[in-house]
């Protein structure tokens, strides 16, 4: 069954801005799905319409077979959402915020308290349960919003930049939690600016730009569309001029570092052979950018992903 189906979704704001220009998207049940796009591309508007915080101009939203126009309550009962902006009642206790949210979804009080304990513990917030939300750090507020979204145990969890402003240690524990939630059968839609997060967590991806879906496929297939990668090589000895490496596009970053573009038809062994011939010893090597990030930038900048002459910047 499809967890979510968007059909020709359109949104034009009263000021004339066309935020969505006909989005068609399907997310299968159990998927971990990345919805990516630059700022203002239409991600948050799409999520707003799915969660009924934004009125659509046209189109259809179906959640687990429930049409949002005809069976709004049933559709909404399936969804949990962590919004991009902090939307907490700042003077309420953490435990009350989570228990109340369960109540809005019809979870009886005793069960709501049990679940609040379970999710506040999972998000490392149980010790702060009697504190008010205002006293939490930015990362803690974001974790509280995740606990709040999980308390009614939704079938579809929408996470709109859940790890923004969260330190790396907590982010990694949140990834583990998200994986565990997904493995338990919950469909997750994730938007994030940390593309390595999307690459490591998600199985499918859609990239949205200027109100349109510009890419929608399995993550592995999308990454294969990236026809070349840029590596940064650190050299043991300093060099004055850019070495000539036949067949490779290169750029001198500084006297110790060069950038080399390697297409899918080329291999790195050949590159190292050429470097050895020129008596250049490589101390270390790294990707210039995350693979998904590189593809993402090419797509949203309307540059075809299969060109062998990529940006040199």
């Amino acid at each position: 069954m499809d967890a979510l189906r968007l059909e020709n979704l359109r949104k034009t704001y009263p000021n004339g801005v066309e935020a969505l220009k006909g989005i068609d998207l399907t997310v299968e049940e159990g998927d971990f799905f990345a919805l990516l796009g630059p700022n203002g591309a239409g991600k948050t508007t799409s999520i707003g319409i799915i969660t009924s915080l934004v009125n659509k101009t046209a189109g259809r939203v179906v959640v687990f077979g429930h049409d949002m126009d005809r069976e709004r309550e049933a559709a909404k009962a399936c969804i949990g959402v962590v919004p991009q902006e902090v939307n907490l009642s700042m003077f309420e206790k953490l435990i009350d915020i989570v228990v109340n949210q369960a109540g809005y979804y019809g979870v009886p009080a005793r069960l709501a308290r049990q679940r609040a304990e379970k999710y506040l513990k999972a998000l490392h917030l149980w010790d702060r349960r009697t504190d008010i939300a205002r006293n939490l750090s930015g990362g803690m507020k974001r974790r509280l919003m995740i606990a709040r979204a999980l308390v009614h145990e939704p079938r579809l969890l929408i996470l709109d930049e859940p790890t923004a402003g969260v330190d790396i240690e907590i982010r990694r524990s949140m990834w583990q939690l998200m994986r565990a939630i997904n493995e338990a059968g919950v469909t997750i839609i994730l938007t994030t600016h940390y593309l390595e997060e999307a690459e490591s967590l998600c199985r499918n991806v859609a990239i949205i730009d200027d109100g349109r879906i510009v890419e929608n496929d399995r993550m592995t297939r999308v990454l294969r569309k990236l026809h070349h990668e840029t590596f940064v090589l650190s050299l043991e000895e300093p060099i004055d001029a850019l070495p000539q490496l036949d067949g490779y596009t290169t750029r001198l970053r500084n006297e110790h570092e060069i950038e080399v573009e390697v297409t899918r038809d080329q291999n790195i062994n050949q590159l190292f052979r050429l470097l050895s011939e020129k008596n250049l010893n490589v101390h270390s090597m790294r990707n210039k950018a995350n693979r998904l990030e590189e593809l993402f930038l090419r797509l949203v900048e309307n540059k075809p992903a299969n060109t062998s002459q990529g940006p040199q910047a």
Partner: protein
Amino acid sequence: MNRAAAREEARAADFARESDQVKAESLLAINLIGLRTIMRKEIKRVSRIWVQTIVPPAITMSLYFVIFGSLIGRRIGEMEGMPYIAYIAPGLIMMAVITNSFSNVVSSFFGAKLQLYLEEMLVSPLSTATIVVGYMVGGIFRGLAVGALVTVVALMFTRLSIVHPWITLSVVVLVAGVFSMAGLLNAIFAKTFDDISIVPTFVLTPLTYLGGVFFSISLLSPTWQAVAMANPILYMVNAFRYGVLGISDIPIAVAYSLIIGLFVALFSLNMWLLSKGRGIRS
């Protein structure tokens, strides 16, 4: 074969009916638990910030009783056959109920809208009616809590024997409901803090002061009596005064009709606006 197909069809129809019934029952259960949650949250909010919600009106009303009732009232003597302090007591109680039920809903709903945590309810499967009734109960609770406290203060200055208890109770609850709904309407349209202070300052306070709290409209000239009759608060104050003291400038049936009519109109308007997403959805 045809009979088997018909049986199958009937079974499917039964299942669909049953499934719809289950869905309806579970939606009802969700909304009942949701309503209890909103009510509990609103009542907790009023109790948590009692220094802001309960104490100030009690102090203000005590000053009214001291100045208008005890000090100036003694010189005024009687009004409509009642000691002046007893005459103004129902009006002052009603004034406290009106301002507090209004300000509770307007500040609570607007605060939730401004800080975005109203979204907690908007993304949930709760019906618009549940949200409206939940906030209304919060407003009625604060209106009645402050009204009860002002009554206690009034009893320190004068004797009040309630002549018509059911009328008194029904009027005070209905009026608190009307002004909770008026507060919600204000909060739906409000975009800034100024927007939620304009109505109480420029509409509610003048109408309350001119609504027969401190005087009987029989003191006014016929022209001004006709003008005063356009003020809905006059009907509410007089209906409540009728319940407490048994005297009123307005026939009680007319007052009831107006209060109930206003309540139905405001409740329906809020329901319509919220279901359209006015002021809460982009």
